[in-house]
């Protein structure tokens, strides 16, 4: 290794710079995703209300993904920040402290961030289970506090929140159009920032901490400092999501701090996949649409089918599991099987599938292989064509 070798060739540096930047480049699928959300404003006017809820949930899930997917912090109490932001926005509006929604939204985010900063020190130590329970405990204590205080309206919820028009120009309307566009814009802006964060040197250091905190410290990274930072940022995101909910529904209730809300957002992020930002968004879309569909088809027992989907997804992989669950549901629906028989039928099928799992997995993996082979062949052919021309 001579002194000459220590001067790396120029093209190598260029390739390196390019490959480092490639992760942050916009991919066609991403652009398509955002175009689709813009299109939904115009194409699905009757769905704006549920879409608003999905956008808010997506932002909330994005927030959890920042700590779970990028820093490896599990949380079963993320609703603490969501709820804190929700109540903050409600109180700011109700008592006329900050009337303009966008400013109030930012203020709620800042307040939630402050809470996140303070509580972040509780999640620095301990195993996953400890973190789950400490975060859960924080959320439950907050819920109790909100229940006892007068300013939050206790168990009645915070009523009588009246929202001023956004930026003084765009009033919230009955059809939820303003609220939807407002939520989408907020989501998109925050997504851009999050995307920047996770692709930055700071984001890289988070990924290294998630992968190996011991080594991260050994190359001079202040592990706890970084964790506190990202936890605080995530808390701000969750707080803004909560504030959006309050602003679009014009009230806040104790349910914003519920355990179920924390658990749902966790499910959403895991379903959608962690550590690529879109997981939370896609998970939110899927989860909410499926839930809404099932609850409309079967208002009493939709949870049964939702549960079945989760079980199957873990047993047979996300795609195959979901398909198989959908098949079982379809069979029960089309044959108009009474619910009692549906339960029995499903349990029997589950047991059989469980016993035959190795064989089924063999089949599904073969299908995946075929699909992959076809895909590569297609790609190869597509790549060849222009060259031939």
């Amino acid at each position, binding site marked *: 290794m001579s002194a000459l070798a220590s001067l790396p060739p120029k093209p190598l540096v260029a390739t390196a710079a390019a490959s480092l930047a490639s992760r942050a480049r916009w991919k066609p699928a991403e652009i398509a995703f955002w175009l689709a959300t813009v299109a939904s404003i115009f194409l699905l006017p009757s769905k704006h209300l549920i879409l608003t809820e999905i956008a808010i949930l997506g932002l909330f899930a994005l927030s959890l993904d920042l700590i779970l997917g990028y820093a490896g912090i599990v949380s079963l109490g993320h609703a603490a920040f969501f709820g804190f932001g929700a109540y903050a926005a409600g109180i700011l509006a109700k008592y006329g402290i900050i009337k303009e929604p966008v400013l109030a939204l930012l203020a709620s985010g800042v307040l939630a961030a402050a809470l996140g900063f303070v509580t972040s020190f*509780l999640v620095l130590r301990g195993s996953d289970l400890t973190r789950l329970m400490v975060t859960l405990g924080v959320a439950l204590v907050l819920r109790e506090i909100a229940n006892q205080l007068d300013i939050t309206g206790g168990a009645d919820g915070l009523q009588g929140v009246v929202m001023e028009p956004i930026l003084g120009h765009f009033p919230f309307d009955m059809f939820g159009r303003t609220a939807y566009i407002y939520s989408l814009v907020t989501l998109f802006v925050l997504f851009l920032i999050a995307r920047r964060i996770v692709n930055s040197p700071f984001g890289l250091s988070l990924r290294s901490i998630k992968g190996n905190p011991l080594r991260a410290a050994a190359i001079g990274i202040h592990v706890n400092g970084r964790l506190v930072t990202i936890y605080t940022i995530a808390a701000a995101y969750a707080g803004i999501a909560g504030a959006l909910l309050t602003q679009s529904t014009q009230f806040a209730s104790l349910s914003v701090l519920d355990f179920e809300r924390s658990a749902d957002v966790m499910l959403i992020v895991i379903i959608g996949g962690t550590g690529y930002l879109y997981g939370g968004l896609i998970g939110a879309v899927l989860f909410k649409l499926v839930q809404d569909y099932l609850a409309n088809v079967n208002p009493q027992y939709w949870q049964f089918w939702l549960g079945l989907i989760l079980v199957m997804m873990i047993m047979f992989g996300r795609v195959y599991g979901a398909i198989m669950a959908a098949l079982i549901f379809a069979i029960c629906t089309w044959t108009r099987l009474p619910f009692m028989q549906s339960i029995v039928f499903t349990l029997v099928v*589950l047991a059989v599938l469980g016993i035959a799992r190795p064989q089924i997995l063999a089949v599904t993996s073969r299908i995946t292989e075929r699909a992959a082979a076809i895909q590569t062949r297609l790609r190869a052919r597509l790549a060849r064509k222009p060259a031939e021309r």
Partner: protein
Amino acid sequence: MLTILFDGIAYGMLLFVVSCGLAVTLGLMNFVNLAHGAFAMAGGYITVILVNRLGLPFLASLPLAFAFTAIIGAVFERTLYVHVYTKSHLEQVLFTIGLVFMSVAAVDYVMGSQQQFVSIPSYLQGQINFFGVGIGRYRLLIILVCGLLTVALQFALASTRFGARLRAAVDDARVARGLGINVNAVFAITFAVGSGLAGLGGALGAEILGLDPHFPLKFLIYFLIVVTVGGTSSITGPFIASLVLGIGDVAGKYYVPQFGSFVIYTIMIVVLIWRPQGLFSRAVAK
């Protein structure tokens, strides 16, 4: 004063019986079974059916509740759970929450959404006055049953051949297999016993905690608190944690009712900050 202490102990013991199955699966098998409450609920409903509909004596139905839930547990273990042992904790959470959703909806349909009550025989109702201390008979029964169980469990895990095999299987499944231990069977039995214990807890607890289809979700938090506070490396940890939480909860609600509901969460947070691995964990340097 002493009555409050007594009630606290009874409540803690109840928490312990319902949760100890979870401590076993989580601590020994390293499996996060959030559907634990569903087994407890199954035990409760089995007792309701046996006692109220079939007219069996309450005391006789307790072991049956244990046995039936254990069988259900074993069936689920063999067909479904066995595939999920090697998955990550987060996936286990997803899987078992799915089972909870299914059980809640199914039980709601089959048994109705209203609360169910077990007909408690008259000799278990009311209080005994013991030197001025009011002692509920039913709560006394809970303490007795739970006390016996704790001793039996401790003995089974520490001093029997099965306990040794289980510990071996947990430490290193491959080595244990090499030693001729049927690891699958050991896990299945452990899981079944854990479920059975939950079922027994559900049967005993229906009277005090109330029994409705929402049970597995409503008490999930309590199970988890007991297990995390107690640590998962032994049976004594969760046992003492249950007692501390039970007495703390009851006393807190009695003396400072307006802050009553904070007590249990506060205890948990403080303990976990102080000892992140739980009160009674071996200091494992992993």
